[in-house]
């Protein structure tokens, strides 16, 4: 691997994220100095990630007249997010990467919300974690993550954010719990932005970095209730 790649050309990259109710597939072009969106499909339906994602991948390929074999890399949102839906994006990326023999790169899904939203001031990015909790992270004015990702009740996230001088919140979780968070909410992005996720992986793509295992950011242990011991049946 050479540090400087001569004759670098634009490559086509697939981005998938299924960490929120929004199921996203996008194609982006990564060139030596830019990341540009080519096609995107995003559907908000928390219960149909498994049905929606593959047809959307197919659709963005068709939109650009590309074939899967034309892809140079795949970027996947690692969550955090509700487990069942989150796995759909990761298994899709991993299996496609395996067949195509191309690298897969993971990005924290909250970065796809917080990084583009941080315009000079610290921002709290939050998505819905169900059970009255949020997945959250805090970004500085330059879009660097400085806290999280964590999962907490909104009040705890708000307190941590205040301690980091956050003045604004963003993301679906911020909309949902705006009253508890007590912060003004920026409208966009509400869900992880595919182009932002690609930008955050662009250096790795350009450098031809090794493929990464796509390990989900679950942040919660599985609900595994040990089976109770044998209950006597005799009175």
């Amino acid at each position, binding site marked *: 691997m050479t540090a400087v790649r001569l004759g670098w050309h634009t490559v086509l990259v697939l981005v998938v994220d299924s960490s929120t109710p929004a199921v996203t597939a996008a194609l982006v072009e990564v060139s030596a100095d830019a990341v540009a969106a080519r096609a995107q499909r995003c559907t908000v339906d928390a219960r149909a*990630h498994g049905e*929606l994602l593959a047809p959307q*991948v197919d659709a963005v*390929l068709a939109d650009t007249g590309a*074939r899967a074999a034309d892809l140079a890399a795949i970027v996947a949102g690692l969550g955090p997010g509700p*487990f*069942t839906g989150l796995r759909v994006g990761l*298994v899709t990326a991993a299996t496609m990467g*395996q067949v195509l023999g191309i690298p897969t790169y993971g990005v924290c899904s909250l970065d796809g919300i917080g990084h583009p939203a941080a315009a000079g001031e610290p921002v709290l990015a939050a998505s819905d974690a169900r059970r009255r909790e949020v997945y959250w992270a805090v970004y500085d004015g330059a879009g660097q993550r400085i806290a999280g990702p964590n999962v907490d009740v909104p009040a705890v996230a708000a307190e941590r954010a205040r301690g980091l001088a956050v003045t604004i919140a963003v993301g679906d979780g911020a909309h949902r719990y705006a009253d508890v968070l007590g912060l003004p909410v920026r409208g966009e992005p509400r869900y992880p932005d595919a182009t932002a996720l690609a930008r955050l992986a662009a250096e790795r793509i350009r450098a031809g970095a090794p493929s990464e295992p796509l390990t989900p950011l679950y942040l919660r242990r599985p609900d595994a209730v040990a089976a109770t011991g044998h209950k006597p049946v005799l009175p």
Partner: protein
Amino acid sequence: MADEPLILGIETSCDETGVGIVRGHTLLADALASSVEQHARFGGVVPEVASRAHLEAIVPTMDRALKQAGVTIADIDAIAVTSGPGLAGALLVGVAAAKGYAVAAEKPVYGVNHLAAHVAVDTLEHGPLPEPAIALLVSGGHSSLLRVDDLARGVTPLGSTIDDAAGEAFDKVARLLGLPFPGGPWIDREARAGDPAATAFPRGLTAPKDLAAHRFDFSFSGLKTAVARWVEARQRAGEPVPVADVAASFQEAVCDVLVGKALDACRSSGIETLVIGGGVAANSRLRAMAEDRAARHGIRVRTPRPNLCTDNGAMVAALGSHLVASGVAPSRLDLPADSAMPLTVVSV
């Protein structure tokens, strides 16, 4: 034959990540990764633990299967995947994986019924299935009797358990006897040294009044309770529990009902082929009893070898191969994982 279709099968409905590859009726690869050890301390399969394990296992299991078969994904003609019934989150990993492979390699995908796949796997060992046939499918998740007129298009449920699955009863009785999870193989092992006639445990839904309404249904909850009462009574009396005898007598009661009802289904419909599948079909007593009693009625029993009876990818590939050979159209790319997929639907 080299011109028969090359089919890949993916199974993730419970705690086994399976990838199988067949050409026609010939098994080329059967790679498996199991999360069973992670569930053992809970005494049953924990769905989220199983789903997490499937995500980690699917790519390496696929790699192993392709190496075993000496093929690449590009050589594959179609991909079959269990779309139901089973654990919703676990099924979803396999279905999404199948679609990822299908989209990347531009192959058709078939979402198939897990239970029909348990029937189809027998074709890898015994060739095409004579139709009609009766199938008895018994595992930790299901206990069903069905009539198979056309495996490619639909099967007819005759009966199923009204409470516990047969394999569940094995797990529960094993725990009662201090044997590890999963209980089936341990009961089988203990029972070899025991007396199957030591205790006459109840045979569920075999009394005349029950047969009127539940001729082909099963019930194992009463049997489990009867074993528990018997064991507790001994323990309270300070007497040792004869584990081998209890295991043998319990196993005899389960097998007696399963075989009795399956053969009744054959004889009442004049069908001469009985296929037995599912994890409990690996039980040595069930296999021997079925062979023995069926022979007396001129019925042929087809039971795949034990490692094809438990959940695996080869069974899904076998059903996919049958569907392709039968000219069934592939599924759409938006095919769902359906945890309650009915038996009447073989592919979606």
